[in-house]
């Protein structure tokens, strides 16, 4: 019974970073702007499919080779081409990775803009939740049945992270975790600044009462679209990291359960609070890793317990208990303070 603490720690950080990005994007959309994105899996999967496409087409082009259609008879050839380039030329791998992030963010934003279209026309507010949920399932079914993107239901492998070229797996995963955490920090700072700007106050006003915001001359539909674009771009970036960390893209990873995981994070942490989203992501990742390791260890001593099932039961219970006893989350949203507030306060003291 040995546990490699260094690798476990690095894996934990990696998973935390990826979930934190998803949680931050949902917090921006639902927590701050009040858009119920029950289709998070869709926007995450956009990043994954983008990565699959860039690794099959862009990567060979950058290396000066001709891309090969990745499915069917060419499966192994295409796989060897991908892994060969990543192993030999780290510069090209890195460039491809960075370009993938950018392209995924752009495509994700575009899809987010398209998805915000129904938000303008639906009759009742919860229909949007249903439309996004169903939309994510439609895309999953289409991708699973349509070969050219990720070889239909077979999925596509060999989408490794660029640092494997260093030849040292531990160092490589450590560097990759650092990149992810840097991205999390970037998104966190961006999102904090956004929330504490006048624009952020508009978002909260929109969440609290759309009509009031509208009557003050704010363009609700445009603001909603903007937030969907930003949130989806972040989600797509997290999708790239998710799939590159896994090395394998399969449509079956982007099911409703993934969306629910992200919701659990935001609900635990505190709806509307970015620190809460980070805390929620951390708790869920630790819970996930610990139960996974415990399951393996217990399995070795011959004690079988279906942890995948228990994990979901636990998540359901967590959501219900949080909603009932602490709906504001572990770290509740702080009331708005602006310079005007502090000015008023000092004047009152005088």
């Amino acid at each position, binding site marked *: 019974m040995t546990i490699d603490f260094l690798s476990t720690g690095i894996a934990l950080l990696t998973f935390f970073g990826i979930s934190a990005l998803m949680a931050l994007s949902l917090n921006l959309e639902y927590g701050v702007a009040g858009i119920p994105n029950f289709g998070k899996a869709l926007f995450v999967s956009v990043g994954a499919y983008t990565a699959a496409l860039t690794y099959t087409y862009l990567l060979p082009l950058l290396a000066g080779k001709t891309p090969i259609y990745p499915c069917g008879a060419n499966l192994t050839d295409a796989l060897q081409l991908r892994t060969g380039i990543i192993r030999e030329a780290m510069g090209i791998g890195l460039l491809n990775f960075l370009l993938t992030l950018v392209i995924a963010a752009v495509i994700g934003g575009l899809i987010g803009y398209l998805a915000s279209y129904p938000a303008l026309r639906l009759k009742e507010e919860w229909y949007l939740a249903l439309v996004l949920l169903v939309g994510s399932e439609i895309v999953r079914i289409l991708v699973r049945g349509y070969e050219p993107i990720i070889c239909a239901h077979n999925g596509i492998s060999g989408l490794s992270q660029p640092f494997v070229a260093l030849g040292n797996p531990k160092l490589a995963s450590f560097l990759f975790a650092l990149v992810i955490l840097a991205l999390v920090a970037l998104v966190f700072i961006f999102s904090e600044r956004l929330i504490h700007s006048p624009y952020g106050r508009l978002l909260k006003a929109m969440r609290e009462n759309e009509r009031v915001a509208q009557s003050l001359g704010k363009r609700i539909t445009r603001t909603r679209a903007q937030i969907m674009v930003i949130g989806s771009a972040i989600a797509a970036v997290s999708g790239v990291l998710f799939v590159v960390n896994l090395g394998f893209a399969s449509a079956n990873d982007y099911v409703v359960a993934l969306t629910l995981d992200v919701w659990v994070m935001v609900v635990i942490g505190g709806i509307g609070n970015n620190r809460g989203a980070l805390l929620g992501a951390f708790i869920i990742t630790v819970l996930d890793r610990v139960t996974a390791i415990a399951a393996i260890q217990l399995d070795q001593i011959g004690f079988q317990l279906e942890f995948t099932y228990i994990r979901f039961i636990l998540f359901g219970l967590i959501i219900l208990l949080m*909603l009932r006893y602490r709906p504001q989350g572990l770290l509740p949203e702080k009331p708005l303070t602006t310079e005007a507030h502090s000015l008023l306060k000092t004047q009152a003291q005088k």
Partner: protein
Amino acid sequence: MPTVLLIDSLVRSLQVGSLYALMALGLTLTLAVVKLPNFAHAELITLGAYVALVASFWGLNNLLAMLVLCFIVTAAVAVLSYKAVYKPLERRKPSIYTMILASFALGLILRYVLFLLVDRFDFFDKRIKIPLEIWYQSKTMILTNIFFWVVPTSLILIILLSLLLNYTNLGREMRALADNRALARVQGVQVERVYYFTWILAGGLAGVAGALWGIYTSINPLTGWLAILSVFAATVLGGMTSFVGTILGAYVVGLSENFVMQLLNHYLGLDFSFKPAIPFIIIILVLLFRPQGLTGFMDGFRTRAIRRQTNP
């Protein structure tokens, strides 16, 4: 297209449509009366199927007794879920998203508890033990006893439900609550009591539909979850809160999943793996372009008829 395939897909449409109608009516009831999109409805369907399965393995082979048993068990679970989960939450006057999330969470718990039990006792992908008999056979069509059980049972239950809604005090109170909650309360409708009856009806119908589904095909703990979005499609197509609309919607969904899919496969070569996307596309198109669903057409006819009567 060969007539055998054509008729077979029509028969399947009718069968599946009837079951969807049963499932969707429960969903519509909770949506209309309690104002809750209950995603945990899926697990009530699965639960009904498994209750019937276990009963049949224990030697219960009277179908009517089996359906009654399913009705009782799932109705009890539905009432319990209202009492333990939704009612305490509702006291805080939460946003509808909180309620949706709670129903997801409840569904998750029920589904994976079922998974645990099914895994322990090895009940994956089993069919309810009802001997298959052929009751009608011609060159192009085979109808089994299952068909003659599923379709009439569904229709009888639908008729009973419509009688209940239209001709009893309880039904009137339910419709009043669905129409205008505040007004119904003022008129002295006992809201809690009607809520409990609504949950009993919705849960029980889901359980019976699940049991019939389990007679029709093999079941696993994901059965209800895989069906629930088709069921939602029926409700959405019916305009969310309409009784007749929901039934029509269920048959339209059943037809488009089987008959239309068969046509698309035959003439356009569309693969059957795309079949689950059909109800989803229906949901999106209806919500975007015709949120009142099929009811709008009927209301249109009615007002036109009334107008013709009043000023000829």
